[in-house]
């Protein structure tokens, strides 16, 4: 046992738990301040998200989105890049999904459309990340600035396309026509009726997301490319010393990151909405940053964090329905507190816990 090291269960279990507990404690105080009972609020939140099949279904549906955007941010993190553009990349990724579905939905069944939708969404998301990546790699334009600006461009571009080129003829809505069965992923409720997911839109994309987790894990920790990405992120000077090209690493990492963000559109467009529409991303790209932070940029952590944020989304919706005093904004406050304690203040309790454990560790060594 070397300096400052804690047992694994403390590092990976106790500390995140304490962070979460602190977040909920402060949230509870806020709830008291607006005159509601915090215990009751927690009850509603947990029941609403995990208490019954449909609630779980919604939680998992949201979690699927968060897994994709969380992975996108995490991959970029490993190269020391902060991809804030998940929002825009996911939005443009929707184009790829829609093009595959619109072209194939009347001809082939969904399982033949799906590979094209995956490739299409990833390619579009990656393409949207390419320009910021290229500018960062060759001109030093900071990727935080450029990706966030590309979110706005994506938004305008999609409004333009959905009002013109992609709009269904004769429709007043800025959206494409609704896909036929060949462009719709099966709902899990139809596949596993016994779970009773009801009308929850959780669909087959959940498994695509879990597969993406496995692939990202393999990429980052088991391939040469992942080794190069992590080297560059941890110490760019040492990476150059090792003959790793910064331009190549930045561009490839951002392409992968953008592709993962783009794949979020599969869940929303092919899995739930069955048409391409305005503003379907609504913040999932940004919450992905929090998910990646809280999940320590590790796929397993991201799955757990994605479920937590899925719970907050779903349970929060129930909560604002049951307790009108607690508005949608309050839920965002609670999310903010979770991000604050689990992300920004991640190490707040650490020194105290190290002090607490040091005598015990010494006793063990002696």
């Amino acid at each position, binding site marked *: 046992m070397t300096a400052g090291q804690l047992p694994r269960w403390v590092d990976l279990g106790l500390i995140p738990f304490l962070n979460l507990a602190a977040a909920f404690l402060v949230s509870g105080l806020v709830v008291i301040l607006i005159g509601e009972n915090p215990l009751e609020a927690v009850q509603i939140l947990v029941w609403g998200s995990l208490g019954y099949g449909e609630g779980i279904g919604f939680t998992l549906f949201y979690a699927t989105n968060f897994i994709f955007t969380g992975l996108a941010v995490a991959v970029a993190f490993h190269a020391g890049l902060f991809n804030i553009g998940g929002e825009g990349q996911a939005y443009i990724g929707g184009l790829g999904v829609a093009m595959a579905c619109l072209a194939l939905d009347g001809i082939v069944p969904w399982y033949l459309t799906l590979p094209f939708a995956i490739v299409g969404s990833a390619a579009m998301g990656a393409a949207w990340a390419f320009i910021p990546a290229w500018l960062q790699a060759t001109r030093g334009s900071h990727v935080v600035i450029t990706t966030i600006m590309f979110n706005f461009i994506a938004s305008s571009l999609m409004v333009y396309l959905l009002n013109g080129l992609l709009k269904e003829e004769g429709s007043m809505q800025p959206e494409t026509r609704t896909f036929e069965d060949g462009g719709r992923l099966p709902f899990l409720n139809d596949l596993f009726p016994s779970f009773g997911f009801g009308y929850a839109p959780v669909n087959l994309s959940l498994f695509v997301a879990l597969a993406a987790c496995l692939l990202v894990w393999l990429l980052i920790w088991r391939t040469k490319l992942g*080794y190069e990405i992590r080297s560059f992120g941890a110490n760019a000077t*040492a990476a150059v010393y090792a003959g790793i090209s910064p331009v190549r690493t930045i561009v490839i990492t951002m392409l992968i990151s953008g592709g993962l963000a783009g794949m979020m559109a599969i869940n929303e467009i092919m899995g739930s909405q069955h048409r391409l529409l305005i503003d379907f991303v609504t913040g999932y790209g940004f919450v992905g940053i929090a998910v990646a932070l809280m999940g320590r940029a590790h796929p397993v952590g991201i799955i757990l964090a994605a479920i937590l944020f899925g719970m907050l989304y779903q349970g929060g919706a129930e909560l604002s329905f049951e307790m009108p005093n607690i508005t949608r904004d309050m839920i965002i406050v609670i999310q903010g507190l979770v991000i604050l304690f689990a992300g920004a203040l991640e190490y707040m309790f650490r020194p105290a816990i190290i002090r607490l454990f040091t005598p015990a560790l010494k006793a063990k060594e002696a």
Partner: protein
Amino acid sequence: MSETPAIELRKINKSFGPVHANKDIDLVVKKGSIHGIIGENGAGKSTLMSILYGFYQADKGDIFVDGQKVTIPDSKAAIAMGIGMVHQHFMLVDNFSVLENVVLGAEDSQLLAGGLTRARSELKRLEDEYELRVDPDALIEDLPVGLQQRVEILKALYRSAEILILDEPTGVLTPAEADHLFKILEVLKNEGKTVLLITHKLREIMAITDTVSVMRRGEMVATVETEHTSMEQLAELMVGRSVLLRVDKKPAEPQAPVMEVSNLTVTDSRGVQVVKDVSFEVRAGEIVGIAGVSGNGQSELLETLAGIRSATTGVLKINGETIDLGTSTLDAADMRDKSMGHVPEDRHRMGLINSFTEYENSILGYHRDPAYSKGLLMDLSVIKKNAVDEIEKYDIRPPNPMLKTANFSGGNQQKIVLAREIERDPEVLLVGQPTRGVDIGAIEFIHRRLVEMRDAGKGILLVSVELDEIRALSDRVLVMFDGRIVGERGANAEEGDLGLLMAGVDTNSKSLEGGVQ
């Protein structure tokens, strides 16, 4: 003997987490003496001095300054008690004048002008009293490091320091500058100041101190009068066993050149020529040392040859292949493919990724080798086995390939880098500062490995600012000054001769340069 000591420490203890950096340290520093503190890296010297200067608080123990028991909560308090510190890395504002730097933080008034005038006359007095001549209006960035250090000393004296702590003061100085510093310290001592000198260089301790305290692994193992001890005894106290200060080696048997550099010129990002028309060769079976004060182009030379930095012009011949460095786009990976190994000067910044495990670092730069891959994935079992072999062969401690390299000591980190580069058996090895910040035991080992490699018929280019190291290892010595190679000497070069060359003094026109020594 009844005189109260300038500083007395009693049973000082300090821990960082589970690391016990200072254990029951007792120290008595006599007033008006030069007291050396020597120890390997990580022995706890810097921690102890940081406690004295108020950066850290001791967990336990008492500090007495001038016989008074004190607590030192911050460096401001330390200054108020007359303790001044000259840091290893200077704390100067580069684009301020000497005067402004001296006054910085001690302006005395809201309006600068009055303070500056007062400071100017005070500075004049200090200069006369201690022979510390510096132009008060010169900008720091225009001054050589030796003078910058003088400004640091002036800063401390301006704040009426009676006790001066110098942390590794000669690391960046030429031998001549170091000698001058020692003269200044003598003057300070004669004026009644107390000097605490922290170093790991035995020669300095012997040359200048009155008393020397030796630290080892957080403990004070001995305090002796310098005149009653020897380098060998001190080295033994530091390491806990006797060590060889000389490198045992046979005369070199150089063969054909393996690396030839001609007319190499390198320009840095500011557009300044840092390597100027340098040509030399390294033959198989010899160690060519490049001596020089740091910042005279050696680092850039090494990085250019390693493929990290691009050259303006120049041709490199390696293993018979000719490369035009001015136009080539070869990177570090390409140079490794041409059988060139590289131990970089700064292992923390370049040689290792400290958040990676030991086994991950053991393939840095060689990770594309097909031997380490199985299909699309890396073959971790082969990589780990390779790491374990290197750990065993180089006695890297702790012998745990899963540990992050940040948790290894400096010497063991350096062994990790050396093992990685040497075990690929390159024809040419570039080595920068192989023993910087490395303890004596590891230095011995590293030097032996380099000589073994030479005896196996490889060509080694060694860059070091440690003249002792250059002289101990090299079969030929090239001296760099201001980007040029200003001289070549044989294996038995005189230290004084090299020192003058390093200072840019051509030995042939020595008589014209009255100013140096």
